[in-house]
């Protein structure tokens, strides 16, 4: 008999399944594996901002891959979080041009304000995870923080930093994902 307290196996929403079907058509029929990175992005957005081993296995089943093929890719690319994260993941750019415009100070400031340390730690209130990342390709508007698909630029003044954190704190619902929006239309 199945143990009744087994955790529910993750399942993609209907909208995400439709999106995955659409993406798979972009590649030759015998090259379904090509859809792996786009599908991992969908999975991460659907399942709380990280890809657990169970979610990686789900991705493998969806694309007819072996789980190891998903693991080895998920661990290579820095955008996939392999452990739980807070509601908002703040990716602070620390590379040369951002450093020249004060990213070190910004990092220290954000650590003070959120109570989390950079390096993937989450604030005690569960709202913010702080990550230092390499170049975000917005060097002219440095220093920068990326939160999901949004760039917060020129965070060299306390006002700009406060405005960003306030906006994120007030975000009651998670943003609607693009494929959910498609399904609603």
């Amino acid at each position: 008999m199945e143990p009744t307290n087994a955790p529910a196996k993750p399942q993609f929403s209907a909208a995400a399944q439709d999106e995955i079907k659409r993406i798979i058509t972009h590649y030759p029929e015998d090259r379904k594996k090509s859809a792996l990175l786009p599908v991992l992005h969908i999975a991460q957005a659907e399942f709380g901002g990280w890809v657990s081993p169970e979610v990686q296995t789900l991705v493998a089943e969806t694309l007819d891959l072996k789980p190891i093929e998903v693991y080895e890719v998920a661990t290579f690319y820095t955008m996939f979080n392999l452990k739980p994260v807070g509601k908002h993941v703040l990716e602070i750019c620390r590379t040369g041009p951002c450093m020249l415009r004060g990213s070190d100070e910004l990092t220290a400031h954000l650590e003070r304000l959120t109570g989390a340390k950079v390096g993937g730690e989450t604030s005690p209130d569960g709202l913010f995870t702080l990550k230092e990342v390499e170049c975000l390709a917005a060097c002219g508007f440095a220093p920068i923080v990326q939160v999901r698909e949004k760039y917060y630029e020129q965070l060299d003044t306390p006002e700009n930093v406060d405005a960003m954190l306030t906006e994120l704190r007030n975000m009651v619902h998670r943003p609607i994902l693009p494929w959910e929006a498609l399904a609603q239309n």
Partner: protein
Amino acid sequence: MGRKLLTEHINVEGIDTFEVYRKHGGYRSVEKALKTMTPDEVVEEVKKSGLRGRGGAGFPTGMKWSFLAKPEGIPRHLVCNADESEPGTFKDRHLMSKLPHLLIEGMITSSYALGANTSYIYIRGELLYVLRILEKAISEAYANGFLGKNILGSGYDLDLHVHPGGGAYICGEETALLESLEGKRGNPRNKPPFPAVQGLYARPTVVNNVESIAAVVPIINDGGDEYAKLGVGKSTGTKLFSACGHLNKPGIYEIELGVPVEEFIYSDEYCGGIWKGRELKAVVAGGSSVPILPKELILKTAAGENRLMTYESLSDGGFVTGTMLGSGGFIAMDETTCIVRNTWSFSRFYHHESCGQCSPCREGTGWMEKVLHRLEHGHGHMEDIDLLVSVAKQIEGNTICPLGEAAAWPVAAAVRHFRDEFEWHVTHAKEAARPGAVYPGKAVLA
């Protein structure tokens, strides 16, 4: 102000929509190419234009296209490299988010020239919002008959898709990009075979940068000869420079190649000089991987002439007194910049982004970062400075892909031009390790 070929309409409201883009002359190159030119004629115009790859290597685009193998019965592909991740370089993100249809138009015209029926835009994963913009524009192009079957009744079919990466600088290297597009880790491939023979899915493939593909649009509209009239010598046309660091007006500038570096930095038309009224100390002119130059050498060539924003002038004197135009990522540093700290930052980047496939790069990038970290934090020794140069030399030329060189050159150049400052970090370790400490001396001019 010189002519703008790519960004002329960038600030027009609604230019990201098909309708407005079309009103401003959009998709003319597709009509012209598909209705009046053979694919070979399109390639010929690109050759005549003298266009050189805008992603960093500067290889002639038309020549690259003519290397494409064309065996019968095997599909071939055009892949746009939109994995812009080099520190200092942020032009493609801007171009794609503001003018998505320009890239799509370039993709259609270029795919026609190459005989590709399925093309991909590989965009860096961090730019998911730009991916949405491109996808919307692509669906508009399909709806208006510029993509899909029998485009404009010409008999030519093309499907275009956007593919996101997952956050890996190495995927900007073309063979790593193709591996990633196939759903694998982004480990660069051994070459040969080159992608032109065996690329995506082992089929003949051309990989071009976003800006190169966008430049095909004005080249076909006005003709390759007209394009070649702009610029200086073998540096033809216009180029986007992304300027950042300690400038009054950082941002993205499309300039006709040949503007003097001094004018680019100081004139109000461009970067407006150094911020806070300070002095310029050094410049990295083409993205973090190219050698850094102190003020004196970036403004004047080895021959003592004004240095120009061209491929040739920026590299004048080789790596001893010159640098590279690269991707056009222009990073200016003021007099308060700590070169050791900055070099450490770049080293940390390359160590983080090394894919780990080749030992010299995997081990060497980490080694350089470690040595630079201890120099910066006051634990360095005099021998460390030569050690840095030695490690850089041992990486160079010994790796599958150019990430090794990209990691080694900035370190070797920083020591070459700022050796005194590295030595000061040993002799005045405690002082130099303080946050914001500034070396009081001058750069060593090679």
